[in-house]
């Protein structure tokens, strides 16, 4: 694999980061609102009386945050800060920094999404391959219609149903949060089990929905692959059918699946945000929801930026791994 290819892909990744930062900077400013003035007015109205000198306070704060400088200077400052990993302070939870809050939430989301995506991808791909395989047990076909139907609905909708069924009706799983309130955070067996128990419902709602999609796509690819000449040849050679299934059919059919995975990451994440909100799971999604409720603009920006960068990086990794999965692709400059 050429260094040229890696560099090119990394360039695309950098473009994504820059675009995300730029959008983050300019979109909010299009509305012409003054976030500092808004926040101060809001606080004043909470107090119930209009404080004298709000205009001066706005001015001081704007100076403090550098919001009085020309737009271009602000933009360059912003990009510089972002490059240093400085995403400003939270307005609602001052003096906590946005980076702090995101760092706290990120492991939850990465854990939840990493696990569910891997599990549903592996499970769905294998199931899809079996569904296309003539030698597979017939009863597997019965999984198809429900998986299809589940695949069409949003994660969080299934989440609502599961929550009602398993947490409210039968009360076998916790209904809310990432761990029991007041649990001692640490690497103890009890805490880990507690966290896992809380992760079951959100994970289940993501996995059950995604499996169908992967299975459907894989089944289609398998049908095409099984019609290829090299499969007929392998059969003619008298290879064991397990070998044909795994090494000839699945190995080839899985390639487009990986490309699809890279493309689906964004959609999976969008869906997972809502799942976190529904279950009050303490990840990025819930943080975002809380920030929207509190009008905490910098946190919203920070979360969106972090997620776009994170996903861009994941896509970059998958792109680099692709030639390793498919040796036919060498990405040499032609």
């Amino acid at each position: 694999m050429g260094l040229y290819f890696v560099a090119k892909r990394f360039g695309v990744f950098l473009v994504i980061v820059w675009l995300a930062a730029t959008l983050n900077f300019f979109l909010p400013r299009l509305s012409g609102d003054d976030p500092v003035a808004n926040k101060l007015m809001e606080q004043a109205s909470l107090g119930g009386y209009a404080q004298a000198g709000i205009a001066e306070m706005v001015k001081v704060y704007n100076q403090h945050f550098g919001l009085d400088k020309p737009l271009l200077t602000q933009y360059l400052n912003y990009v510089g800060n972002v490059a240093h990993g400085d995403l400003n302070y939270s307005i609602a939870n001052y003096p906590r920094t946005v980076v702090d809050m995101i760092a706290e939430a990120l492991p939850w989301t990465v854990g939840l999404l990493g696990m569910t995506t891997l599990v549903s991808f592996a499970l769905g791909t294998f199931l899809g391959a079996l569904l296309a395989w003539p030698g597979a047990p017939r009863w597997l076909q019965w999984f198809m219609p429900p998986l299809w139907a589940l695949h069409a609905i949003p994660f969080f909708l299934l989440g609502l149903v599961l929550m009602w069924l398993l947490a409210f009706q039968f009360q076998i799983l916790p209904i809310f949060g990432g761990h029991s309130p007041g649990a001692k955070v640490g690497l103890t067996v009890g805490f880990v089990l507690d966290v896992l128990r809380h992760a079951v419902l959100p994970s289940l709602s993501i996995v059950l929905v995604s499996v169908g999609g992967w299975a459907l796509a894989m089944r289609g690819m398998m049908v095409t692959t099984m019609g290829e000449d090299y499969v007929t040849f392998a059969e003619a050679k008298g290879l064991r059918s397990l070998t044909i299934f795994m090494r000839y059919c699945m190995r080839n059919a899985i390639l487009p699946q990986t490309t699809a995975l890279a493309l689906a990451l964004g959609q999976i994440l969008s869906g997972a945000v809502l799942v976190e909100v529904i279950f009050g799971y303490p990840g990025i999604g819930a943080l975002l929801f809380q920030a929207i409720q509190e009008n905490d603009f910098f946190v919203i920006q920070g979360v969106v930026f972090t997620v776009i960068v994170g996903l861009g990086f994941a896509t970059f990794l998958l792109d680099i791994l692709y030639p390793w999965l498919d040796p036919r692709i060498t990405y040499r400059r032609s």
Partner: protein
Amino acid sequence: MRRYLARNVSLVVGIVLLGLLTVFMVVGAFTVDTSNAQALSVPALQPPSWEYPFGTDRQGRDLLAVMVAGTPLTLRIGFIAGFFGVGVGAVLAFVAAYYGGWVDTIIRGIADIGLTVPGLLVLIIIAVSLKGTLTVTQMALIVASLSWLNPTRTIRSQVLTLRQRGFVEIARLNGMSGPEIIFFELMPNLLPYLAATLVAAVSNAILASVGLEVLGLGPVESPTIGMTLYWVNFNAAIINGWWWWWLAPLVVILIVFLGLFFLTVGLDEIANPRLRRAV
């Protein structure tokens, strides 16, 4: 016709589901007083009864009225954004795939990069920036701003395969211009495919709009399905056992998504007969 429909079950299921929904909307519009979809118009938290078949919510909305008023709003957002997406996407895709070269590189580059970005988050930034009360149409336009990415990509790849065919070559030798070939030779051949893409785009747009609404970023004044779910979450209706509050919007969304999904699969089957072997 009938024999074909018997084979293309997905198409029938999709049409039936969406037909049921249409009947519900039309009959509802004539028989249900939609002013009860506003808060404080009926007694709060009534379970389903003869008077309120879908029950009422905590702020005193009649959920049947909310569904009758909200379903068309939700669909409208989906249709505006979906049509916009496929319209813009198709034009870009045809131009990119037919002309190739640097035009193609730019259009494909933008679509590819745009697709790796989680759409909902960009929409959140836009919606938050526009804060203030959104109307349903504004909401649709926000969703539309990203809805052309996917159609552009998928239609482009279809045009690429079509462009190689002999009849395009002959049209070119006959002296047809680029736009003429696109409109009279390529477009008609892709119509079923465009239809399937449209349905998928509508479904994605509804998904995005419901997502924004559940986060509380929708048109707060309008009783859309997503807003209803926002209130469900806000009031913790599930923990409190007010099952009817979430059951109605859940069933409506389920019918919308399942209907659109099966319609897409059915149209795909028409557009792409090679799939017949697989399904």
